[in-house]
């Protein structure tokens, strides 16, 4: 277990380093002068002295590597600078938006499980019969449908035509349903296929045959003996696709006007608010690596053999 954590921490450092270098470089390559942005040069008269003073204050007159070093030092103290737009610290901006995105992600994942598990089990139980074909078609649709379009269609029917669910806003449970479904559906149906494949594999294992031969009830065999082995590949793929899941969250936040991290990022892009973009990219990188660490650790809970294999090493 220790090795796993160690590897992930190393990865985290590598990721953060690449990301910081990446965003820093991009920021320097970016067109437009941030000093003019901050001084709101479009609307006000800005003198050369004002510019030079701010440039000096922000350290922009220093060589690049010193700027980078300074920036890194600040980064280690969780200081990402101030938003050009609001003037508030970026960390503060991010933290106020974080709970909203977390809520969306949480509900989307819950909904995803509620679809994936029954659908996967159901189609494994009736292989090549209509439930299986049904889930196969759903997965194809899920993999082919643009999620924002699915969201638009859902809004159109449920909010405008039927008027049963609100089309936007946050705070109440009915408002969560459509965004969570939009975000979760695509993954749910694809993971259901993975779960089905895993179940078919594990249900054909000898230990399942042996458990049947001992008279164990079918539902116990499915959930206690076969399910654990079947969920592992689903978890692996989930860890790998977590990034695109967060990307999907951006689209859904825009679509349903949720003021989460994604909305913040898009706003920042449209307003050239570089520190906020930087903060967002770094934070997401951290999330992805940490989430993968959780996925790694959950292996140990699911399959106790892993622990002993490692101890033997």
């Amino acid at each position: 277990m220790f090795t796993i954590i160690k590897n992930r921490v190393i990865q985290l450092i590598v990721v953060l380093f690449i990301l910081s270098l990446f965003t820093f470089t991009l920021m320097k390559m970016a067109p437009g002068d941030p000093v003019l942005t901050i001084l709101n040069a479009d609307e006000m008269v800005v003198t050369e002295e004002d510019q030079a003073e701010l440039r000096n204050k922000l350290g922009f007159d220093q060589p690049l590597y010193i700027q980078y070093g300074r920036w890194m030092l600040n980064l280690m103290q969780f200081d990402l600078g101030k938003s050009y737009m609001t003037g508030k610290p970026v960390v503060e901006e991010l933290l106020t938006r974080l709970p909203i995105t977390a809520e969306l992600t949480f509900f989307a994942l819950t909904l995803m499980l509620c679809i994936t598990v029954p659908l996967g089990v159901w189609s494994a139980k009736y292989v090549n019969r209509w439930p299986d074909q049904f889930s196969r078609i759903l997965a194809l649709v899920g993999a082919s449908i643009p999620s924002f379009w699915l969201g638009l269609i859902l809004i159109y029917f449920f909010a405008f035509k039927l008027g049963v669910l609100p089309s936007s806003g946050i705070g109440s449970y009915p408002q969560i349903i459509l965004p969570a479904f939009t975000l979760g559906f695509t993954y749910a149906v694809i993971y259901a296929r993975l779960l089905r494949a895993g179940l078919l594999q594990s249900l054909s294992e000898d230990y399942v045959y042996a458990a049947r031969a001992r008279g164990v009830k079918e539902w116990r065999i499915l959930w206690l003996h076969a399910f654990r082995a079947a969920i592992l590949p689903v978890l692996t793929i989930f860890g790998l696709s977590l990034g695109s899941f967060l990307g999907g969250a951006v689209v859904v936040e825009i679509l349903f006007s949720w003021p989460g991290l994604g909305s913040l990022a898009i706003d920042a892009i449209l307003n050239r608010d570089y520190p906020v973009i930087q903060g967002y990219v770094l934070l997401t990188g951290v999330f992805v690596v940490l989430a993968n660490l959780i996925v790694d650790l959950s292996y140990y809970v699911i399959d106790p053999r892993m622990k002993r294999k490692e101890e033997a090493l």
Partner: protein
Amino acid sequence: MNIQMPRINQIPFFFKKQNLLIQCGIIFFIIIILITLIGPFIVPNDPFTANMSERLSPPSSVYPLGTDHMGRCIFSRLIVGAQSTLGITALVVVTVALIGIPIGLVIGYIGGRLDTVFMRLADGILALPEFILAIAIAGFLGPSLTNLMISIVFVKWIAYTRVVRSIVISERNKDYVLAAKVGGSSSWKIIRRHMFPQVVSPVLVLATLDIGKVILTISSLSYLGLGAQPPAPEWGAMLNDGRPYFQSAPELMIYPGLAIFFVVLAFNLMGEGLRDKWDVKSR
């Protein structure tokens, strides 16, 4: 307890009954290619001509699917949009393959420290969602189609390199490669003659399945305003254009969305068919 089922006779894979979906995929694909190639010459109206007196008009003989908020023919824009959406996607996937395959061949064949460094780097980059990277690049360099393409290529090539690398690693110690070495073949020749043919079909499957994903990414980002900019008739951008009107004129978003859906579906069906046919393991 495993009873071996008799193997079904070798019928060409797209004629098999269970591959009905794949047949549909191929038919869709052919239609899409035809539309892309000859579409611009047969569109009833100019896709860029705005006609404010005809805005948001219902389908008619002049405008088969009606007009958008600027009075442009939706049908014509869809047809021409196919070219830009598919053209961009094809360009992205080809670029990715051209970068990813050679690097994978070389890294896999040489191995050693180079390989270790690469794998660490790849793990690092793969932890970053391509979507987020695209946002970063679009954010710093300004939203445009070119920047969007750069960001997708930047992330995607790694997947190809990884696939190619793993195949090369599993092949390079096999006896026939050894025999070729003993026979005096140069490394270059071994890579070209023995390694490259091995990676063609897995990469083709990967690319076919990726086309769908790239189309979805491009259109999602265009929808967010980070990709194709108006008035380009790109499907995602069309959806974004129609967003303010979609309560009153839902067809503005229904048609481009359907277009994206069917094209992606066609590529997914073909990709699955190819994967089954060549028995390539999904990653």
